Structure formats: C-alpha cells, structure tokens
C-alpha cells in the first residue's frame, strides 16, 4: 500500500513571504541598490561570478541581495539563471599578455619588465577595523602617476628563455576543449577540463586543498611566478562577419605558480607550473586553483599520488559547491518513509540483540546454578 501525504502548501507560501520580509529587514533602513553592491561589495560580486560561472555583475549583485548575502545560495541562483539562456558560441581564447593590468606582482623576479604593480590590494594593510568607514566619511581620489605604456610579458615567458621551465600546457592539435556544462565528468580527465572545473570550484575547498599541499601533503615547492589582475578583450567568431566580433572587456585574475621539480624518468630537472584563471578580482582563488592544478598533474610527472589534493576524482567531484550544497542540504527534506523503514529495521535488530543478550544471561545463570 502506498499512502501519499500532502500538505504544507500554506506553510511554504507563508515561509517565503517571511523570507521576503526578513530579506528586506527594517523598513526604516534604505533598501540596497544593485549598483551599490556592484561598486562597494565588488569582490563578493566577483566571487559569485566566478563560482556561478557567469560574467555579469548586475546579475551577481541581484543574486547576492536575493540570497541575503549567502554566497553559495547566490551562486546557485546564478547557475540556475544560466540554464535559461541560449548559447551563442565560444569566444576566442583571451590573451592575458595584452591585459590592461590593474595589479601585477611576482614573487620570483624583483625587476621584471613592467614592474611590480600593487594595485588595489589588501596586502600590507594592518587589518585594523576602520571606524571612519562606519561613519561614512569621504574618500580621497587615488594618486596618478604618468606612465609609458610598457609591455608586460607573462613571467613564464622570462623563465622560458633559459629553458628551465616547462612550456605552456599544450594539447594534441586536433583536441577540442572539453566542456563540463555539456558532457558529464569522466575520470581520468584532460587538464583543460580539470581547469574548467577548478575555475568554477568553491574557493574555500580549493584554498584548503592548496594549503594542504604547502603543509606537506603533495609537497611541490611553489612560488608565485606572477599574479595579474585586469581587463582583457573578448572576441567571438560569427559566420556572418569576416572578422572576430569584439564583445567588450572582462576583468580576470591569472596566477602562474612556479614549482621546483627535480626531474624524473619522464622529464629533466626543471620548473613546472600550475595555472589559475578566474573571473573578476580573486587572487586567493586563482592561487588556490594554480596549487591544485599543479598537484593534480602528479601522474603526468611520475610523482606518487599520496595526498587528497593529487586525487583527481576526489578533488573535481567535490569542488562544485552547488552540487555539494544540494546533496548536503537535501538531507533536511522530508525522509519520513525512509526513516520509518530504518526505524522498523533498528527496532527489529534491537529486539534480536536483546533476545540474544537475555538468552545468553539465562544460559550463564543456568551454568552457574549447575
């Protein structure tokens, strides 16, 4: 017999109305506008774009408000929205070497062409809360310095001149980049697919894994060859035009991690690399991505796979926070029937257990009496 139970419709509707009320909060406080979020919570917006895997500032800001600032919920909203739109195509690969750089630092070369540009960074701040910010004072315009337009080659190109670093990752000529939004994950996977998964992966998860590699689980001696943040141009090939159509510019963060490698049967001693590329200004994420990318290349270099960060199936299967939250949070949905079945089972097992125990005790008593 199957008994369907209905109910809760009014409760759900009222709960959502209550959610809307609590989201708005005290009505005497002005409602947030999306442009305020885009401008003043810009790095939160960038995180939602990166992990929501959709470059659109206003949509990310809307998602943040709708989710009451719950980032994973906001990312979920953006992912869901993406599925409602048709796809026009794949852009030409961006050229990060031609980026309009807003920040660029290298931990490996002090004097590199283009120099060290700190940009709008939290580095070297004292991490002291600023009461003036709470008071809402005016902020001075930033200083400007005349500069010649200098080419800023990627640091990897400098090391490549000596031949001491592996080249940029190549794929066979006829390789079509994989797309995890079109095909299910399959292991082992090519590096291009792994990078797509890592770029939209959860920042916290990748950060913890990257940290674990530094603490000795899959140790690989990393240096930040370079982190650069800035705007790159996007172009799309369209059949109706004889040239690639310019779409505008998007801000991305790129990290080139350089790793010491003592050599193996497969490769001579050299520096190897991990690569990170994410939407928006998000250097912690780009660095964590680069650490994970390098750790996941263990088998390529003949390294022993001994740590979680090197286990491709483990890392990639658990890096997506929308999937993760879906599976964890579904546990709170009604499981009444499942649980009823388990309850019956445990009652039966307990009864059998008790019977065995009691039977055993009776046996002991009998033996003692004899």
């Amino acid at each position, binding site marked *: 017999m199957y008994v369907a139970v209905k109910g809760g419709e009014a409760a759900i509707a009222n709960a959502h109305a209550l959610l809307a009320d609590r989201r708005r909060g005290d009505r005497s406080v002005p409602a947030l506008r999306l442009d305020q979020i885009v401008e003043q919570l810009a790095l939160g917006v960038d995180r939602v*774009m990166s992990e929501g*895997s*959709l*470059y*659109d500032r*206003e*949509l990310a800001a809307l998602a943040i408000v709708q989710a009451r600032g719950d980032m994973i919920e906001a990312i979920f909203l953006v992912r869901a929205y*993406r599925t409602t*739109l*048709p*796809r*026009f195509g*794949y*852009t030409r*690969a*961006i050229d*990060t*070497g031609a980026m*309009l750089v*807003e920040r660029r630092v290298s931990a490996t070369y002090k*004097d590199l062409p283009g*120099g060290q*540009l700190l*940009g*709008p960074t939290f580095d070297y701040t004292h991490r002291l809360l600023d009461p003036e910010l709470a008071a809402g004072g005016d902020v001075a315009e930033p200083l*400007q*310095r005349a*500069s010649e*337009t200098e080419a800023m080659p990627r640091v*990897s*190109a400098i090391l490549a001149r000596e031949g001491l670093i592996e*080249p*940029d*990752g*190549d*794929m066979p000529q006829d390789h079509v*980049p*994989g797309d995890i*939004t079109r095909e299910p994950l399959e292991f082992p996977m090519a590096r*291009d*697919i792994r*990078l*797509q998964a890592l*770029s939209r992966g959860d920042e916290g998860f990748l950060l913890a894994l990257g940290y674990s590699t530094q603490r000795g689980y899959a140790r690989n001696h990393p240096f930040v060859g370079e982190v650069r943040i800035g705007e790159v*141009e*996007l172009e*799309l090939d369209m059949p*109706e035009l004889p*040239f690639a*159509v*310019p*779409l*505008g510019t*998007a801000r*991305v963060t*790129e990290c*080139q991690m350089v790793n010491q490698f003592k050599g193996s049967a497969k490769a001579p001693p050299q520096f190897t690399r991990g*690569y990170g*590329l994410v*939407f928006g200004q998000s250097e912690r994420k780009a660095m964590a991505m680069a650490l994970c990318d390098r750790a996941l290349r263990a088998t390529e270099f003949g390294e022993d796979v001994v740590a979680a960060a090197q286990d491709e199936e483990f890392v990639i299967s658990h890096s997506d926070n929308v999937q993760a939250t879906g599976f964890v949070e579904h546990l709170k949905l009604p499981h009444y029937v499942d649980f009823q079945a388990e309850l019956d089972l445990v009652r039966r097992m307990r009864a059998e257990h008790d019977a065995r125990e009691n039977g055993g005790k009776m046996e002991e008593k009998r033996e003692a009496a004899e």
Partner: protein
Amino acid sequence: MRGQEARDQQLERKAVMATLAQSTGDDIVRLWNEAGLPSEAELLRGPETGLVTVRGRIGGGGAPFNVGEATVTRATVRLASGEVGHCYALGRDKQKAKLAAIADALWQDPTRRNEVETKLIAPLQAALASARERRRAETAATKVDFFTMVRGED
C-alpha cells in the same frame, strides 16, 4: 591592393564595433540623441540575450580551455538603404545592442560614415581612452620603486 583596402576597412569596422561594445548604453543613447541619428531600422534578429563561453589558455599561452560563461546581447538590423549592421556586446542591454547595430549599419554607408564617426564613435572613443589612461595612471602610482640600502664601507 583591393584586398588590402578591404582588410583595412574591416579593421576599422571592427574598431568601431569594439568602441560600441565597450561603451555604456547610457553614453550611446545620450550621444545618439544629441547627434540626432536615425533610430529606425528593420530588426532582422534580436535584440536578444544569450551566453558565450569564455576561453582562456593553459599556462596563459597553451591550449584553450573553457573558463565560464558571460551574458551577451546581440542585434542585427537592416537600414532602408540596405546596409546590414550587427552588434554583439557583453551584458543584457537590449537598447544598446540595437543602437550599436544601427550604428554599425550607418557606418557602412559612405554618406553617413563621417557623421557616425565624428558625432558618436569619436566621443565614445575619447571617453574610453581617458578612462583607460586614468586606470593606467592610478595603477602606475602603486608601482614599487626598489632602492638599495648601502651598508658598511664599500
């Protein structure tokens, strides 16, 4: 020689489309109204919003891989005089896409090109260039100038 001319013209047109795509809808509308450019055109497609998948390269210069998606709005228009104009621009601004497509079509008409260039494209380009220059100068002010501390006799 003709081939070279055609290629030059394509590059110019591409630069015009880049300027329109990078400019805000507000700026385009304001200049459009000031210039009194015609906004009638037959819509052949859109304006409609969709996605493009952004590609990067492994290691910066290696094989391409998919990074994530971006919203893009596109429009295709035809003028009464026959020119067909296109626009693809990041974001979801449909009015901008439509006007940019009309601008692309008007630009292809040799009798209208100059007007589009001077009243719309040139001011947009100037605004973009000045914003870029400002961004560059603000970043340059954060450049580290290393100096060496000399200690001891020599």
